[in-house]
């Protein structure tokens, strides 16, 4: 085993960017992402990497700079959170549909109002349909590993989509944990040289970027993003396997934890999955066969595989750290349910908005509620909150 070094999630993201040495980084601060790009900027300043750092005046400009640099064929990164992601949303959709594989750590934070800097997934869920691949991380190790893999996934010639690497604000971004690094040599060898198929500045092969497509081919461009996302499902698994051969840490679309014989299970995104694993262990000590499905890839969404993995489980709680107004249940719940083929009782739990803590005892209660529902066979579609202070 390599030496584990103490890094916060933000440090781990910066370390991965440093080890990859991208061509261009657009930088604008926002809590809780600020330290990530601050740390990376110090590597640029110290000459550890030769990335062109662009200090911009807003996130809209950050994503615009990424669009320009990536159009020119540069390996391009930025990072943001919350309001910053919403401000750049307009350009995010353009980056994706122009098929520019920008890599962007998103340090998940609640969106206003009320003003809040705590973690939830409302920001990345806001861009659910923007055409970005979205990979969620449980801990700092996964942040490092996923940022490195993101370049290979997004830049794959049959994918060519931008990738958000989502990490929970404060819970991961500010928690110091041991992380194994592969170092710049191995990381750069793993990602390889980026050879863009088209380059705006290649005067020998002139191209037009961002032309008008009216009723003639606009529709087809959108359909091609659908195909790229479908291909990304295969590529995420291939890249995750190859990374596993290199490091011993293999990655896939999701990670099953004690699911094989589970009667009840939780499906969730991000850091909560770690806490849910502890809750599952404790539930098992009390005789309840509990498991966890940690979803890593929310876009593309591996619906059939999730349904298959949960087929034998009697009752499933789908945990959303975001909310969909006007439709009971969070986005993850509705997507899981759209692939459910009968069988399991599905319950939607919305939790942790604005950084409200989620503990193993909260999740043991969820497992206990699932066990009761499994017994009673109560029908699905039930919508619950965890830790709400109104009743």
């Amino acid at each position: 085993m390599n030496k584990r070094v103490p890094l916060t999630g933000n440090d781990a993201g910066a370390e991965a960017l440093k080890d990859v040495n991208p061509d261009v980084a657009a930088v604008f601060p926002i809590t809780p992402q600020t330290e990530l790009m601050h740390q990376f900027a110090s590597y640029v300043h110290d000459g550890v990497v030769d990335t062109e750092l662009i200090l911009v005046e807003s996130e809209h400009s950050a994503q615009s700079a990424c669009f320009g640099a990536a159009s020119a064929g540069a390996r391009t990164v930025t990072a943001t959170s919350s309001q910053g992601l919403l401000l750049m949303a307009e350009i995010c959709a353009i980056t994706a549909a122009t098929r520019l594989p920008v890599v962007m750590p998103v340090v998940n934070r609640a969106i206003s109002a009320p003003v809040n800097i705590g973690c939830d997934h409302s920001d990345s869920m806001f861009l659910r349909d923007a055409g970005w691949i979205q990979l969620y991380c449980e801990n700092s190790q996964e942040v490092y590993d996923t940022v490195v893999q993101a370049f290979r996934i997004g830049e794959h010639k049959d994918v060519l989509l931008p990738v958000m690497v989502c990490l929970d604000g404060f819970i991961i971004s500010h928690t110091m944990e041991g992380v194994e690094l592969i170092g710049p040599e191995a990381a750069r060898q793993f990602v390889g040289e980026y050879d863009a198929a088209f380059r705006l500045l290649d005067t020998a092969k002139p191209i037009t970027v961002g032309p008008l497509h009216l009723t003639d081919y606009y529709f087809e461009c959108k359909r091609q993003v659908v195909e790229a996302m479908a291909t990304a499902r295969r590529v995420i698994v291939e890249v995750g396997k190859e990374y596993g051969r290199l490091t011993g840490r293999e990655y896939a679309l999701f990670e099953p934890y004690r699911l094989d014989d589970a009667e009840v299970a939780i499906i969730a995104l991000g850091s909560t999955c770690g806490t849910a694993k502890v809750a599952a262990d404790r539930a098992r000590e009390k005789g309840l066969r509990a498991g966890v499905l940690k979803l890593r890839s929310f876009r593309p969404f591996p619906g059939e595989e999730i349904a298959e993995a949960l087929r034998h489980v009697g009752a499933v709680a789908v945990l959303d750290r975001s909310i969909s107004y006007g439709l009971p249940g969070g986005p993850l719940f509705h997507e899981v349910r759209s692939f459910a083929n009968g069988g399991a009782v599905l319950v939607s739990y919305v939790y942790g908005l604005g950084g409200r803590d989620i503990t193993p005892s909260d999740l043991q209660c969820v497992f206990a509620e699932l066990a009761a529902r499994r017994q009673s066979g109560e029908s699905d579609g039930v919508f619950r909150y965890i830790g709400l202070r109104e009743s």
Partner: protein
Amino acid sequence: MASELIEIRWHGRGGQGAKTAAQLVAQVALEEGRFSQGFPEYGPERMGAPIRGFTRVSDAPIRLHCAIERPDVVVVLDDTLIGMPSITEGADHKTIFVINTMLAASEIGDKLKGAGGKPVGTLYCIDATTISIDELGRPMPNTPMIGALVKATACISISALKKDIQKKFLAKFGERVVRGNIRAIERAYEEVQTS
């Protein structure tokens, strides 16, 4: 597995270095080949306002990602916080309290009651503020409090702690600050009193 996990909750005021101390202990544990986490309260920090920090140390990988509900150890960097319910929250008769105070353990004990007025845990008291003024020239109780914590719990070794301080502080703050911090840690380790 649960018995191998030590959960430490830090209480201080913004500016006293509770977050730094929480992360420093986690770093030293990692240097010693163990698994650890160090993190601040998730949210804004304001100078003088009550804040919390958290450290987990374990022989096995740590999967929890939440605040510490039932601390094995509570470190209090500022005794004016005593009496706030958050200090004794989740504590029981087995909890170890390490408190920065000029008062004796017997005097603090009366003020430190858990839920239902029940007495809580074992008390370790140290005047870390005076030690830091003597050794560092300013009231910065966090490093001596780590010395007292190590004496009370042996969660990390004192030699690894000193080595880490030497390594981390030397380039950033210079030899004088390193010496002051190491003396502060040693003094707190020696002078901490228990009830």
